């Protein structure tokens, strides 16, 4: 086990930021910490890194208690902060070299690591640029390079893709997968469920500092009753027809708004066939029909009653 957090409690005055939060991260995982803004993800990471004092709980990294002076543990951790933390007076290369130099004193091996990190994040063409000259996406990549250049065993990434263009986001996510393939354990926090779904092997959903659910994405989706969401474009649906549709077996809910009929159905039935048969029988004229599997947002919605981005 790489990280173990037990009953972590953190208060900001009257606000309970972390409410007995517990989780563990296994070696080789990409562990996703998913929750809406203000759910306590960054607070949890700050406590984990001993940047914040906490009121109660235990934190162990690599089997040893984490503390502000646990430098031997910090040496094995790479950190990518939510806010880009680089020096504007240094070039891309100099920034990576500085942060790598905090971990690797040897100049020769550091040079190789810096070159490798620059190639890894695709900043070779910008190595001599100053940060002010970089776009938001490139700046985020530099932030990542500064965090991973020393090849840490554990990488903690706190919302590394905030305000990043799709191309850079894709590059960053591919990079995280590559780092994981190279053997690094990754803790990844985000409020973008698509990212977490795409790269994380295990996910913890938190809200208001409390753990809501944990497991692989399949396990999380299996926790909820909904199996399928069917959307039908139609301009003619009477309230009576909608009531009859809701009464069908395995239909959890049916809503009609702005020419869209959204039907959520539970497990065990031939849901799409049931809905299509109903449409034919009622002679409802319709346009496109979509069928979607549940997302993590649906999981969050079903458990908390609100959307992830509320």
């Amino acid at each position: 086990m790489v990280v173990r957090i037990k009953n972590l409690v953190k208060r900001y005055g009257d606000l309970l930021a972390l409410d007995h939060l517990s989780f563990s991260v296994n070696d080789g995982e990409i562990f996703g910490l998913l929750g809406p803004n203000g759910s306590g993800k960054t607070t949890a990471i700050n406590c984990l890194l001993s940047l914040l004092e906490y009121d109660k709980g235990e934190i162990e990294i690599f089997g040893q208690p984490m503390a502000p002076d646990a430098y031997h543990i910090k040496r094995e951790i790479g950190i990518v902060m939510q806010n880009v933390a680089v020096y504007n007076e240094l070039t891309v290369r100099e920034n990576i070299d500085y942060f790598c130099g905090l971990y690797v004193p040897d100049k020769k091996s550091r040079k190789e690591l810096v070159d490798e990190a620059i190639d890894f994040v695709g900043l070779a063409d910008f190595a001599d640029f100053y940060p002010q000259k970089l776009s938001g996406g490139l700046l985020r990549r530099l932030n990542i390079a500064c965090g991973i250049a020393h090849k840490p065993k554990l990488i903690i990434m706190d919302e590394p893709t905030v305000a990043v263009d799709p191309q850079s986001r894709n590059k960053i996510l591919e990079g995280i997968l590559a780092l994981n393939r190279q053997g690094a354990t990754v803790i990844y926090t985000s409020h973008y469920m698509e990212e977490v779904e795409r790269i994380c092997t295990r996910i913890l959903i938190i809200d208001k500092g409390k753990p809501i659910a944990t497991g692989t994405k399949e396990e999380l989706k299996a926790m909820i009753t909904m199996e399928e969401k069917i959307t039908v474009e139609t301009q003619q649906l009477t309230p009576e027809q909608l009531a009859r549709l809701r009464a069908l077996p395995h239909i959890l809910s049916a809503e009609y708004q702005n020419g869209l009929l959204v039907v959520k159905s539970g497990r065990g039935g031939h849901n799409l066939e049931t809905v299509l048969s109903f449409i034919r029988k009622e002679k409802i004229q319709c346009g496109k029909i979509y069928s979607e599997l549940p997302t993590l947002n649906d999981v969050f919605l079903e458990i908390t009653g609100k959307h992830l981005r509320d």
Partner: protein
Amino acid sequence: MPVFKLCLKILRKNVPSLAIYIFVFIGVAVIMTFSSVNEQAGTLAFTRSKTNIAFLTEENTPLVAGLKAELAKVANFVELPDEKEALQDALYFRNVSYILRVPKGFTEKFMQGEQVRLEKTTVPDSYSSAYLDLSIDQYLNLARLYLLHLENPTQEALAKHVADALAAEAEVKLLPGGAAPDMQLSANLYFNYLAYSLLSVIILGMSVLMLSYHNKDLQRRNACSPLSAASFNRQFGLAILTFTGLVWLLFIILCLLFNSKNIQSPSTVFFILNSLAFAVCSAGLSFLIGNLVTNAKAIPAICNVVTLGQSFISGVFVPAELLGDTVLKIAGFTPAYWFVAANNHLAGLQQFTRATLQPVFNGMLMQIGFALAFFALALVAAKKRRLE
């Protein structure tokens, strides 16, 4: 030492803005050097000048010829018609400064030992007329002296004796006056001006470093690294000291280069020691400002207010003698005042004993006191900032 190297890189990036103050210092030093050379030329050089004179004589005797010959050494003779209006015009338009008329019978009366009088018309209160009066008196007094002591002298003999006596020249070397040598005074100028340049560069450099140091995101990122806070602070402190030392050394070298004549003077050592005390004090003040400033754009403005304000009231730009008592009393609360006061005292010293140097040591101690106060306040400000 990654943090130490980082600080030096940050400072190197800011060299252009720091260099402005260094070039300003060099510019002022060059101007001071030239003006000092011109001043010295004005003080030490001597050029004999001649006054325009209209010499009108109603008799031509060897004695009068001798007087004219003697006056030729200090006067240019301007030929004018012996008409009242022409003479008055010449005097009014300053074509001549002095009109001398030798009346008829002058020589005869003189040779008989009678009281004689030359007629003169001059520009009122002019130094040149006084100068000519002296020359005429000198000639006639000397002639009378020979007349009294020689036996039956002829006019020719009298004129010759006087001419011989006045031909003897004594070499005159004009020494600079005042209590202290001029080179010490010029060193004083350089070192006084150092207060502005040194303080500006140190405040600017230090503030840039402190802004990076206090950047919350970078602080948190550095705190995640295996480098201990103590090691981080040690390297940062070393960088600050190195920067202060290098800037001080650079300015001292410039001061000595521009004022190379004073290097061997015993005052130089004390000027340098005083500037070192001021550099330490500047580092303290910069450290305090760096802990108070949160916006990079505010740094140049604060730097200007602190350095220019202090320099103006402490006698860096305007000599302290020209400043009012109230201004100087207020200036006493700034380190630059004590730095300048010590420099000014040093400039006036000819003997370097413990007693004569005591005011200089007092000035240095005051500056060190200021430095300690600034560092203490800066640490309080830093702690307050951390708690926020």
